[in-house]
């Protein structure tokens, strides 16, 4: 028999707090859109790594990395529920909307974190499991709890957590880290500020209203736009580098150079945007292009690897 307590810690009657959350609400806690990027880049790391992995273990690896990333998303939503409730972009998330209680999200996130790390360790290797655990820790504790509300460099440093998945995928196959896996990490790491600050420019008021020190609110629009160009250039250059380390071929290099040039052109268009521009179309275009750019770069790396292996595959068949 369940005893009902209608009072919160302050003794305020808050009515019945029995959950009406659906499975879909819990799935939403995992930030499925972010998860899709994580799955894709982790898969790329897994395929690009030298050596082979049992296909079943490969699928389990991706599943664990996806669940680990989702778990950190749930823990992020648990901690940030107060500011999520104020920002228009996040107000409809399950916790601020009242569909899931904060403690439910906390328990859900912690359980999934432990499960994903332990299963990855048992099924694949403990190095990749350790890297996954560190990624969850970095996103939840270093970024969400510490950096996000204390420095405008929050997403620069915190972006590392989003950049780890291809390294984890790589480590699942090799059991370690190499220059090429660091390169995959760097592409996402350097891409994050340009991607996120483009969003922050046209969501500046949202971040300002909750006191999150995003770069446009702290350093101003002009400085942010200059920094976006710097990071766009660094990303474009780094994305070509796999051609020089032997990770990818010349075709990939040319493709990455063209995409990178467009990325830089987008950042220059953002720089030319007049101060006080209400619509901020160049920033919105840059944000949309940045998502396409990252998917395209990793798709090209995968296609390059597939094409490189094709003669060998056909030779084996004939």
């Amino acid at each position, binding site marked *: 028999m369940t005893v009902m307590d209608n009072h919160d810690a302050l003794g305020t009657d808050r009515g019945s707090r*029995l959950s009406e959350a659906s499975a879909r609400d*819990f799935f939403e806690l995992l930030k499925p859109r972010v998860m899709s990027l994580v799955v894709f880049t982790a898969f790329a790391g897994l395929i690009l790594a030298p050596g082979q992995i*049992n*296909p079943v*273990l490969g699928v389990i690896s991706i599943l664990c990395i996806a669940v680990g990333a989702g778990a950190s998303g749930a823990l992020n939503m648990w901690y940030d529920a107060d500011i999520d409730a104020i920002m228009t972009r996040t107000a409809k998330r399950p916790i601020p909307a009242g569909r899931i209680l904060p403690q439910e999200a906390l328990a859900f996130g912690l359980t999934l974190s432990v499960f994903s790390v332990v299963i990855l360790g048992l*099924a694949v290797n403990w190095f990749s499991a350790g890297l996954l655990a560190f990624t969850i820790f970095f996103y939840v504790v270093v970024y969400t709890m510490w950096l996000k509300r204390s420095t405008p460099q929050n997403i620069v440093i915190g972006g590392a957590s989003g950049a780890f998945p291809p390294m984890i995928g790589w480590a699942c196959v090799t059991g370690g880290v190499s220059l090429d896996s660091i390169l995959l990490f760097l592409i996402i790491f350097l891409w994050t500020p340009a991607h996120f600050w483009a969003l922050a420019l046209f969501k500046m008021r949202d971040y300002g209203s909750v006191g999150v020190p995003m770069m446009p609110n702290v350093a101003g629009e002009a400085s942010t736009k200059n920094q976006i160009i710097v990071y766009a250039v660094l990303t474009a250059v780094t994305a070509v580098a796999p051609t020089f380390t032997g990770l990818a071929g010349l075709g990939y290099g040319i493709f990455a150079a063209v995409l990178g040039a467009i990325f830089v052109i987008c950042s220059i268009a953002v720089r030319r945007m007049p101060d006080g521009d209400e619509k901020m179309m160049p920033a919105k275009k840059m944000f949309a292009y940045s998502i396409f750019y990252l998917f395209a770069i990793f798709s090209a790396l995968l296609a390059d690897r597939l094409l490189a292996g094709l003669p060998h595959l056909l030779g084996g068949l004939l």
Partner: protein
Amino acid sequence: METVKLSEAQKKSRRNRNIALGVVLAGLVVLFYIMTLVKIGGVGN
């Protein structure tokens, strides 16, 4: 003693969560079974 009386919406969402949890648990059983086959039985190597 005051006890809980679930509303229809709460019953519906609880059933929805129970089904999802059941699917996840069944998935884990299959996952561990396959993992065992691969790790111990060398399936797919």
